[in-house]
């Protein structure tokens, strides 16, 4: 029986996970692009990502591109699994 996930259920984190799961496995999204797409401030997005990273749902990679610091984010396999399970649980509720 699929279970709802407390971490993913928060609206902002649900959208973050949905955006990252929409990418192919292994593809990474730029931090500022993600914030812009979801209309989240850097601070707000950073806090949510930290929560998701601590749970092992996302992987964050800080790197340099053309000598400028850049942060890329992707959903981990565990995060994808939990997201799918959460969405499945929501579907079950809708069917009741």
């Amino acid at each position, binding site marked *: 029986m699929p*279970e*709802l*996930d*407390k*971490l993913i*259920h928060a*609206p902002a984190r*649900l*959208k973050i996970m*949905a*955006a990252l*799961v*929409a*990418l*192919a*496995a*292994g*593809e*990474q*999204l*730029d931090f*500022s*692009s993600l914030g*812009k*797409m*979801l209309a989240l401030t850097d601070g707000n997005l950073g806090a949510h990502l930290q929560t998701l990273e601590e749970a092992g749902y996302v992987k964050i990679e800080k790197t340099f591109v053309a000598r400028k610091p*850049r942060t*890329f984010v992707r959903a981990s396999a565990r995060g994808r699994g939990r997201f799918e399970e959460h*969405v499945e649980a*929501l*579907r079950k*509720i*809708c069917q*009741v």
Partner: protein
Amino acid sequence: MTEETLPAPSRDEAHAALAAVSQTIADTRRIVASSVSGPIIILWGCIWMTADIVLQYRPELMGQVWGVLDFVGGFGSWYLAVHYKQDVKIRRNWRFGVFWLVLFGFGGLWVYLLVPWNLLESAPAQESFAMMRKIEAFSHTLPMFAYVIGGLWMGRFFVWLGLLVTALIVAGYLWMPDHFCLWLAFTGGGSLIIGGLFIRKFWK
């Protein structure tokens, strides 16, 4: 109830959450696809147009023309994917590039194996032109086939673009045999350019 579970939301809340998920996934795919696809599609539209105009008048140059322009297109696509100022910056995994290599490798292999190259040199000009028409039709519909399949995940726009251009190519192949390359240049190449401009303007 485990630590990571929570009381079930109401049916309306669950509906709203699922709608938000669907909308975010669709928006993400559309924005990501549009960020670099537009310029790349325009580039390939220009390449098709150039190559097909040349081939209408100098069909014997098919190998050289496509050899040079495919290289320009491949390098240009790579350059745009890496350096173009995108609204959404994404690190693609290796599968994206390998997909196109496999597709064109597959097409190139079968063109090489199925075309009677040794007979072509001695064949009358009309037969050579007819064979070139077949190769051109196949090689132009192959990436459109990929657009249709990819569009099932990336967005319906790519499905419609692929189907439209394929239909135009087949129509020209059947009903415009003498001016097929010009037809390809302005309908196939033109559709790609218009499609790329449409993506750049409206997919933000």
